[in-house]
């Protein structure tokens, strides 16, 4: 089971963070060549990210590189650094249409061929940051078999919607649309960054909301949030105990040749069994909630 609960943003121009972010053990790390890097440092950041990718610092952590848009003067050079460096995933910012994914897919394949990397081995992720992107989320999510996830990016989205970040109401439709697109495409969905680094209570409230909605995880800008997020997503001992009983009841019913599964006198539906298996898989992958 691939866990993508946390995606930690690391500025591609920060040697200190690139050299140390692995110690926080996020599920994914996202080396950012886009907004976090000033125009005059784009060249140096690209080389720094390439060299960092070549080092075995991030073993066991998914390495994502956010490139600049391919329509910018930097996007294609970023792609060279990321694909040749061995990035696991390329994150495309400001994705508005499926055509942009197709363009990225073709550009990635070209670099893979040029550098001898297996064609198709670089996966993709699209960030939805506008009303157009939200409206087209399903076609974006299904645009390429390389896509492993779509992410909602809150700051640009609320600006496009002519509003500001608030209690989450402003993101409600976008969250639901992106999530449904991801589920329909059978890929992962990532929620927005929580901007207030000192508001732990607000962060946990948002985590509970997005977990309940069904998001796989969140983009993060503060390493302190990783452990909180992982713990919130971990099943409790009670969850696991119940899941084991459900799975045992299903196995017993199958052994007895019964079509109906029963637990404590109540009928258990197939989706409940599936969910129980998912809980056990997640517990095995993440451990139990502390």
């Amino acid at each position, binding site marked *: 089971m691939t866990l993508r609960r946390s995606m930690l943003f690391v500025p591609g121009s920060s*040697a200190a963070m690139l050299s*140390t972010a692995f110690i926080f053990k996020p599920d994914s790390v996202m080396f950012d060549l886009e907004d976090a890097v000033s125009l005059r440092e784009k060249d140096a950041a690209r080389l720094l990210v390439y060299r960092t990718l070549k080092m075995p610092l991030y073993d066991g952590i998914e390495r994502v590189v956010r490139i600049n848009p391919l329509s910018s003067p930097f996007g294609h050079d970023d792609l060279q650094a990321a694909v040749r460096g061995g990035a696991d995933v390329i994150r495309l910012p400001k994705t508005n249409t499926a055509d942009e994914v197709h363009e990225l897919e073709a550009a990635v394949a070209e670099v893979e061929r040029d550098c001898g990397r297996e064609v198709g081995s670089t996966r993709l992720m699209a960030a939805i940051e506008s009303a157009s992107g939200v409206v087209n989320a399903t076609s974006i999510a299904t645009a390429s078999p390389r896509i492993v996830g779509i992410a909602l990016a809150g700051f640009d989205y609320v600006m496009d919607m002519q509003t500001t970040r608030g209690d989450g109401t402003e993101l409600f439709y976008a969250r639901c649309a992106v999530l449904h697109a991801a589920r329909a495409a059978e890929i992962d969905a990532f929620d927005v960054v929580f901007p207030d680094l000192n508001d732990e209570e607000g962060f946990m409230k948002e985590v509970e909301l997005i977990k309940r909605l069904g998001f796989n995880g969140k983009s993060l800008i503060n390493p302190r949030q990783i452990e909180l997020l992982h713990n919130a997503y971990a099943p409790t001992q009670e969850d696991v105990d119940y899941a084991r009983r459900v799975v045992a009841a299903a196995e017993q019913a199958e052994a007895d040749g019964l079509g109906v599964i029963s637990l404590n006198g109540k009928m258990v539906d197939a989706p409940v069994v599936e969910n129980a298996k998912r809980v056990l898989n997640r517990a095995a992958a993440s451990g139990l909630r502390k």
Partner: protein
Amino acid sequence: MELKQESLAGTLESSDLFIRISPSDEPLEVVINSEVGHQFGDQIRAAVVETLEMLKVTKGIVIVEDKGALDCTIRARVHAAAMRAAGVTEVDWEALS
């Protein structure tokens, strides 16, 4: 790669290095100031020289202020500074690979 102007790259933050590279008619001169120079000075110098050799930089003055940078950071910073000094904007990815 021919150096044409003085250029800088990197920072003085921990885990980074700051490099100043200047054109010269003399063979390459590399000065390294590092907090961990007594322990890793040879490795830092090797990373700097190897990167410049890869870029075919044979003349110039290079001054490095190291703050405990990893090998990957040293090579990236030297590469960026040399490209800036040479006025080169396209990375030769084939040579780098």
